[in-house]
């Protein structure tokens, strides 16, 4: 009986003093990889009480790659990260959700390694739960899901967007007349000088099974240029040329999942495909590699698992997608790295099998797997350093 044997060992341990020792601490903020980081990732622990940010410097495969976990180790359990270039080097902005009304916590980490400590702020609670961020030159475009706000903000010298000094800011419910339902801005994209906003509408409480909206706003003053009703519960947006591709989840049954192809010039739907090529699973994340016209899409459901597919434009003519990978647990994020020709998949796992996987865009084969032990947590979000 292992218990008895180990009890003896335990007694020995007691004799040499297992008593009070000082606590360990979270990671420090000096960086091993720093300026060589190719990826920034966020993890959460299984209790969702803590989270952390880490770097990955890619080698040829995972064995030759360097992973530095816990670069920032003081994050909460609901976080997102975006990377952008500012000045001479890349920055990462981490947003930690605050449910207490204190306002989201935002950290800007200098990936060049020149500045050791991150710049840290709380932003006004009227800008709660940032779902997307784009930084272009000295402007930051942000979408705040909970409070229906979309804004343009100047970026300060330290690389932190000045969320309390908007250049322009609109409330989708109050300012744009989308008040019939709760219009949650979810994804942003820039297209020919306009800001595209993918809006998830909520009806009543927690019911997103209603049509979403794609908005085209002026990127300077956020005035409304055009809008288009979409399918229920839009999840993700990919842009290629003058077309946008939107995944719509519908309800949590798979009956009304669809991919919509939108002609942005005319702001109208030109084609759609239902979920049948994806085995009827719920459609969520989509990425589009514009040069090759290759789509990557995640579809899945609890109890069945999640699958990564690859397909081309011919899906809308009835072609079948390629199944690249199957995962037992929820895949909540994919991120495209066109420069390195990789697609990153955040698999949150089901039984300690979470991983961050990198797929070769051309072959569709998995080239990297960083498991949760190496990442020191369950991957929650990833952003590519460009």
């Amino acid at each position, binding site marked *: 009986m292992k218990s008895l044997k180990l009890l003896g060992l335990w007694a020995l341990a007691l004799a040499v003093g297992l008593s009070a*020792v000082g606590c360990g*601490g979270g990671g420090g903020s000096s960086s091993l990889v720093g300026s060589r980081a190719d990826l920034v990732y966020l993890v959460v622990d299984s209790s969702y009480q803590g989270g952390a940010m880490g770097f990955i410097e890619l080698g040829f495969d995972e064995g030759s790659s360097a992973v530095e976990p816990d670069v920032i180790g003081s994050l909460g359990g609901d976080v997102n990260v975006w990377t952008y270039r500012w000045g001479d080097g890349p920055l990462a902005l981490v947003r930690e959700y605050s449910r207490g*009304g204190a306002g989201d916590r935002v950290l800007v980490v200098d990936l060049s390694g020149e500045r050791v400590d991150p710049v840290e702020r709380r932003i006004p609670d009227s800008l709660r739960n940032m779902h997307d961020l784009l930084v272009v030159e000295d402007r930051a475009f942000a979408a705040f899901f909970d409070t229906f706000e979309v804004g343009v903000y100047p970026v300060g010298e330290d690389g932190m967007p000045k969320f309390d000094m908007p250049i322009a800011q609109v409330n989708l419910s109050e300012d744009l007349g989308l008040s019939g339902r709760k219009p949650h801005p979810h994804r942003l994209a820039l297209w020919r000088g306009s800001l595209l906003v993918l809006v998830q509408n909520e009806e009543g409480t927690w019911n997103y099974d209603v049509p979403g909206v794609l908005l085209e706003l002026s990127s300077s003053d956020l005035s409304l240029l055009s809008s288009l009703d979409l399918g229920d519960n839009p999840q993700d947006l990919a842009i290629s040329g003058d077309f946008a591709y939107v995944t719509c989840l519908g309800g949590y049954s798979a009956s009304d999942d669809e991919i919509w192809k939108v002609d942005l010039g005319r702001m109208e739907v030109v084609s759609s495909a239902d979920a049948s090529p994806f085995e009827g699973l719920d459609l969520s994340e989509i990425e589009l590699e514009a040069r090759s016209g290759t789509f990557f899409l995640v579809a899945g459901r*609890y109890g069945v698992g999640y699958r990564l597919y690859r397909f081309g434009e011919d899906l809308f003519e009835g072609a079948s997608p390629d199944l690249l990978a199957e995962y037992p647990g*929820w895949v*909540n994020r994919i991120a495209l790295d066109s420069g390195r020709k990789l697609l990153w998949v955040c698999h949150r796992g089901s039984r300690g099998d*979470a991983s961050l996987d990198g797929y070769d865009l051309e072959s569709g084969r998995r080239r990297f797997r960083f498991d949760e032990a190496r990442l020191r947590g369950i991957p929650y979000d990833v952003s590519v350093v460009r």
Partner: protein
Amino acid sequence: MVVEGSPLFELSPGSFTVLRPEDFEGEGKDLSDLLGRVPGLFVVRTVGGGGYAVASVRGSTSSQVAVYLDGVLVSRQGEPAFDLSSVSLSDVERVEVYRGYVPSRFGFPGLGAVINVVRKERARRVLSAEGRSFGGFRGFGEVGLPLGGGFLSLFFERDESRGDFSYLNDNGTPYNQDDDYRARRRSNGFWRDSLAARWARGGASVSLSAWRSRQELPAAAPGTDRDGIWSGAYLEGEGWEVGFAVPLSYLQVRAFARGRERDFRNPRDFVGWYGQRHSRFEDLVRGASVGFSKALGRLSLEGNLGFVEEALRVRGDAVERLGGRDRFDGTRAFCSLEGGLPLAGEGRTFLNGVVRYQTFNGDGDLGLGVLLGYRLGEKVLARLSWGKSSRPPGFYELYGDGASILPNPSLRWEELEEVELGLSLQGRVGVELSLFRRDYDEVIELVQANPRFSVHQNLGAASVEGAELSIGFRVGEVLVEGVYTCMDARSERAGASRGMRLPNRPQSCGSLRASWGSGRLFIFAEANFTSGWFLDAMERVPYEDALETNVGFKLDVGEGRRLFLGVKNLFDERLWMRGDGRRRTPWYPNEGRVLYAGLTVEF
């Protein structure tokens, strides 16, 4: 004798501790404070004194601790983690805590962890009033009179606090000290009223009790507790209970019913932002048990049989706006048999064993416990025990709530296997030492299934190795008592947290107390400490080591009146988390120094 928990005592051959609230009367303590003096037990509080608190025993989760009132299970399937703050101490005779080997009369043994609150059968004639910092007040009274050949006791208690202590708030930005501010805790108050009547004669008793309470639900502290941010959420409830106990020859029969209605109000939609502004939870629990105790030659036998039926009804926004499940029903039943047999050496060596079978809504599981004891003279006893126990999933774990948690009907029971080596020494110095190892398996965890739903799964596993020490002795007139627990509680769960320390299971904690009483005056001083405590599963969010010192005195001023005055947390030590090597305001700060004073009158 100072140290209890010895097999020399009658309650159990295994490890247990008994605390009597009257011994600590006038010391500003609630049930959580008392349980902090139990080796192997750690109390996790989320708010200040008197607020929501749960217990962990030998590395267990709070859901794995079975809590009983007068031998009747009160930790519900609808709420397996029992809130210790819901028990008022005014009518409590003693609190028993069983660890490891659990006697058969507790048909649902948790995972080797039982807290049994035994209430008084005979009231004193006492009135007491206590005021304390942050708007705290506690008043209680008890009175009794002979009636119908028995004794009728009446108890009442009022306890309340604003909980508005001040503390340093780092705004949740440990890298940025410029935005730190001094804050006063908001939405952190509570009040609780209770009334109980009990009639007892011999082993028979009838009890009636009722309570009502309100518990404010504060926001996580970092960045809050300032103008414009106010939770306003609270939980208000009322409940009643009726119980009977009747001895019939060598049988003891019990029956009880307990009802509770609670309203969760969240007027500003502050908690979760889910639009759940009001939900109502009504539960009714009924049960009965019969037990016997009989000697058959050298073999002493004890057996028990019982059931508990529970019905939970949910109304309000959780159901109507979020599509939640509105009713849960469950029946738990058990039968158990325990035997004790003297072996060699005229009973110096003895063997005890318990076997129990539990069921919940048709699923069942067998639990076992074996204890081998060896007495050396009158005052020394060594024991070795092994046990296996299990806990069925709770309502929300198994059936989901319909709103945000998916059902998982294939969820398995949580399991524990434990081995323990104990030594008791009774003499001028009383010592109780236990070494234990626990292996938890199939531990239920909540995981995110998709953006909309979570689900409970049997993911967790853990091993816990530890030691518990209780010691007591006198130095002249001074009584010195100490308890100390050290534990190495590590996750065996697959994945990144394997080998990490379990959250909310401190590596060591303990209490040292010295008291002196002579005639009219009683003085005490005590220190409670905690070390190696992580909030998260990846050892990233540790609490700093904490030391709390309490002092006080009680003075008899004649005619049955006793004045008391004291200070909890004399040096105003605050709890701090750390992150990235920096000090951080914890989600739920402790209240710091608390002054209290009061008067108890016996009439």
